[in-house]
């Protein structure tokens, strides 16, 4: 039997110091697109830092989970899909929503609980929706999104559509029944779905190996004879490549896949988490492996982004976030009269 130590080591297999994805990945893509990935990563970084700040200033209520440290996974995942594919995520979804094209202002307004938010102020941080951009929702119930994603993939297959479904989740989610039930169904019915595990190595205070008998999470797909792989979640191009391949296979061959992207969340589980359970040196080590810095270095080394360009992109992202806050501040709250709206169809929701 494996010991706890061995399991822990295995869980962190793709940890700091792993080799980077091949340089050929840079070559196939034009400079503008590559720079746009950088822009999206820093946009998410600034957005999330600002969301944390707005939470502590009581502009945002409820619970608020940030994508800090996961930017390469978020951007790589979204970039590997086509614009009309459908995306399901958990509640740690601000970055995905933005990458799918919901404006940061509308996302921020939703976090503030304002009427101009993408869920009309009804969903809050954990429940962002935008049908037009095929962002099918963040979900507050852990694992809640998985069967829904499978059902959506079923509907697509049923209609003979070309689009696919992509479903994000956390590492802790793989220990629940919905994960296993959903993978089984997806494979059994051969549905066009790509599952992504964002292994940030903790589910709240529980380290992967403390919650999962199999800490190599991608191996859980074996039980359903589903193709799967593990990638470095701090390497944007590696995530992108894996998602693009899985998406193609889903689209062309009707085969589901599971991808495990290993990264680390830079802060606590949610903004209010005092984060007492992670060793300081572990946090420091992973913070040094900042996905944004890694990608910036790559672009610089390849002569694709000079310092002036980097600064310009970052300033633009910062401005977009400031603008988002201003929009959210100035928007209105839903009124009490609307309480019953949307409980049911029809006038007044009743």
């Amino acid at each position, binding site marked *: 039997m494996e010991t706890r130590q061995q399991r822990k080591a295995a869980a962190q297999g793709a940890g700091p110091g792993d080799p980077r994805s091949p340089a050929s990945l840079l070559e196939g893509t034009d400079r503008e697109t590559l720079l746009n990935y950088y822009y999206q990563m820093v946009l998410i970084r600034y957005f999330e830092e600002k969301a944390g700040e707005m939470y502590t200033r009581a502009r945002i209520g409820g619970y608020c989970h940030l994508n800090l440290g996961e930017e390469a996974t978020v951007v790589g995942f979204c970039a590997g899909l086509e614009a009309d594919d459908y995306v399901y995520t958990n509640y740690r979804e601000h970055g995905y929503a933005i990458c799918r094209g919901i404006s940061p202002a509308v996302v921020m307004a939703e976090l503030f*609980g304002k009427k101009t938010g993408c869920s009309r102020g009804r969903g809050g941080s954990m429940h962002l929706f935008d049908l037009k951009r095929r962002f099918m929702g963040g979900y*507050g119930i852990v*694992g809640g999104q998985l069967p829904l994603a499978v059902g959506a993939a079923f509907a697509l297959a049923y209609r003979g559509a070309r689009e696919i479904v992509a479903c994000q989740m956390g590492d802790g989610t793989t220990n629940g029944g919905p994960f296993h039930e959903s993978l089984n169904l997806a494979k059994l019915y051969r549905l066009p779905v790509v599952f992504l595990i964002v292994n940030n190595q903790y589910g*709240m205070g529980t380290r992967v190996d*403390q919650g999962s008998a199999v800490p190599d999470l991608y191996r859980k797909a074996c039980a359903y004879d589903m193709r799967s792989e593990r990638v470095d979640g701090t390497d944007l191009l590696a995530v992108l490549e894996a998602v693009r391949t899985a998406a193609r296979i889903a689209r062309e061959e009707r085969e589901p896949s599971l991808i495990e992207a290993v990264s680390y969340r830079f802060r606590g589980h949610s903004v209010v988490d005092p984060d*007492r359970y992670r060793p300081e040196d572990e946090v420091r080590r992973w913070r040094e492996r900042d996905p944004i810095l890694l990608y910036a270095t790559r672009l610089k080394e390849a002569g694709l982004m000079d310092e002036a360009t980097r600064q310009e992109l970052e300033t633009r992202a910062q401005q977009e976030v400031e603008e988002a806050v201003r929009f959210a501040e100035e928007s209105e709250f839903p009124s009490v009269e609307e*309480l019953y709206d949307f409980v049911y169809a029809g006038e007044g929701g009743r």
Partner: protein
Amino acid sequence: MALRPMTMIEALNNALALELERDERVVLLGQDIGLNGGVFRVTDQLQRRFGERRVFDTPLAESAIIGTSVGMAVYGLRPIAEIQFAGFLFLGMSQLVTQAARMRFRSGGAFSCPLVVRSPYGGGVRTPELHSDSLEGVFLQTPGLKVVIPSNPYDAKGLLAAAVADPDPVLFLENIKLYRSFRQETPEEYYTVPLGKAKTVQAGDDVSVFAYGAMVPVALEAARQAQQELGISVEVIDLRTVWPLDEEAIVSSVEKTGRAVVVHEAPRAGGIGAEVTALINERCLYSLLKPVARVTGYDTPYPVPGVEDYYLPTPAKVLAALRQVMEP
């Protein structure tokens, strides 16, 4: 007895520590309850004191948490499971409803399931749906399951001890807003507060108010204002065990006062208020001077923070209901 001012969190923590000391069969399980002491720190330090064998973390799997607790209970342990928020009970509901609650009944009394499932519930602290839901009404139609909701630290400790000692499964719902809202002198020693017994918090002659959890202080404040403004004497009864109800306490109070108001933050339809009202109709119709009034949440999912102050019952709303039932 040695008294100490405790918050509800401290009283519950103290109760759990006593259970672990008293009875080797007691085990605590749930998500992040060990090192982290649970989302609200109710199990703080208990793993350190009693070890990982007695107080342990589970994976993120509510169905397995409750289901394995059923197995443990049937086999002779005394599991106390924590579900992080009542909204997540739905994922373990199958085990609670289809297994725990029916074990005794379907085995013809051969098996029992002395299990306690603890879970925080309730609104008013700016958390969103699923983290603010009041679900007691959902479990009214689960014969075999008891549902307990304390309104103060003293009762919380004594009721939890009684729940652990009880031979049947108990869903123990802890109001989030009450967790740290006030301290109360609470004995350090072991004691129980009986399940199935309501408590008259304030005796009165003109009207009965039935409440539980965070609505007890709301009802008391309304009673105080009613005394001042309307000159009426209000009886406030804390139901404490919301299922099965303490029928005698309800009936004898209404027979005395002839008027009743039920207060809860859960949605209105099909809830505790509906059940108390039906009971009053069945057993005290001829004592009733006015229809029973309900002051409740609304029949919507729990609303966004901006609207929740309006959604929740307040002393003003209870006072309005008192005015209404006091009309001649």
